[in-house]
């Protein structure tokens, strides 16, 4: 009888301890962006211990000595220079109504790239820089640009250039909709799709530094800091929208519309986990 009481007491004590030590099952699924970002950055730091954190923004050029030399040489006469000049000119040219891009952005649009995308509490959605630029145009009676290249790449190239060296500073406000957008972006990043059954993470988390055909895969950490980029493969400039849609096509998935909610959320997630790393755009990639 005595031993039965002991046993029951011990069982009760263990059960009480377990209820304190183990968080409820729901808590495990609650988004925790700050913890995610720490784990995300640690994963890449552990994977590439010789690399400085800030060097991740140079993508594959940081992972291979020969490629790094190529990059240094390229930077003497960067292939994005024409686009950058075009963007600067476009940015300063007034719209037909006399206003300009500067009127649509904080600090007249200079040195603000690191704050995009942000969560707009009025709209309840993520707003990217590309989206904000086209909204600025439409609000001022101008036709929107294609999201994937040319003018949009030029404008974002100039805005990134004025923000070079500033660390990504993406904020997730205490708003369940913002957390949901973040979580949706995370889900998109890790979800396999397309006939090849690849997720974004298949290449950029599981295999950065490895070759896929002739290319060296970039790490996901810092991957958006260099956007927009001139890609030799594209023979021109491309925006974040172009990067996302072409990735989908390469896995034989039908891409979504540029600036669809999923891509906006994906950009939110990927930018947030790279917080603290400097903006280096516009960039160049093989």
């Amino acid at each position: 009888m005595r031993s039965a009481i002991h046993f029951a007491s011990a069982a009760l004590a263990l059960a009480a301890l377990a209820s304190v030590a183990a968080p409820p099952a729901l808590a495990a699924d609650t988004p925790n962006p700050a913890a995610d970002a720490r784990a995300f950055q640690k994963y890449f730091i552990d994977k590439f211990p010789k690399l400085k954190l800030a060097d991740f923004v140079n993508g594959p050029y940081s992972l291979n000595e020969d490629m790094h030399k190529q990059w240094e040489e390229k930077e003497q006469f960067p292939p994005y220079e024409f686009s950058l000049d075009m963007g600067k000119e476009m940015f300063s040219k007034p719209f037909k109504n006399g206003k300009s891009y500067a009127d649509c952005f904080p600090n007249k649009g200079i040195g603000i790239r690191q704050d995009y995308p942000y969560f707009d509490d009025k709209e309840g959605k993520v707003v990217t820089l590309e989206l904000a630029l086209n909204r600025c145009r439409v609000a001022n009676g101008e036709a929107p640009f294609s999201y994937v290249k040319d003018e949009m790449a030029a404008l974002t190239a100039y805005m990134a250039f004025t923000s070079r060296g500033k660390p990504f500073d993406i904020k997730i406000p205490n708003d369940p909709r913002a957390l949901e957008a973040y979580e949706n972006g995370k889900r998109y990043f890790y979800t396999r799709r397309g006939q090849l059954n690849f997720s974004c993470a298949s290449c950029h988390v599981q295999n950065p530094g490895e070759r896929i055909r002739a290319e060296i895969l970039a790490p996901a950490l810092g991957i958006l800091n260099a956007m927009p980029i001139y890609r030799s493969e594209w023979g021109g400039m491309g925006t974040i929208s172009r990067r996302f849609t072409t990735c989908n096509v390469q896995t034989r998935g039908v891409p979504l519309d540029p600036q669809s909610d999923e891509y906006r959320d994906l950009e939110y997630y990927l930018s947030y986990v790279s917080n603290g790393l400097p903006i280096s755009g516009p960039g160049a990639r093989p």
Partner: protein
Amino acid sequence: MRNITRISRLVLASLLLMAAATSAMAAASEADFKTAYAAAETANKEAGALRDQWTVTATALAAAKKAADAGDFDTGVSQSREAEALAKASIFQATSEKDAWKDRAIR
């Protein structure tokens, strides 16, 4: 007598099998194509609702339509069936990934 009955049954069964095989090999009709194409389109729309369509499905659907437009309903049907199978695979992928992605997330 019993053996003769057995042989007759066997012959009859063989004839029926041959007839069935011949009819299966008959050229596909426009109606066959329309049925197969509609099934493929329905599956692909479902994949679209799950935001996981595949480019190869669209390619097979286009090939099916092109063949049918040229009067080649055999190819039209076979390409439609290919498209339906691909669309169903993409639906399976989207469904199974609903929670599977969590296992891959960095923690």
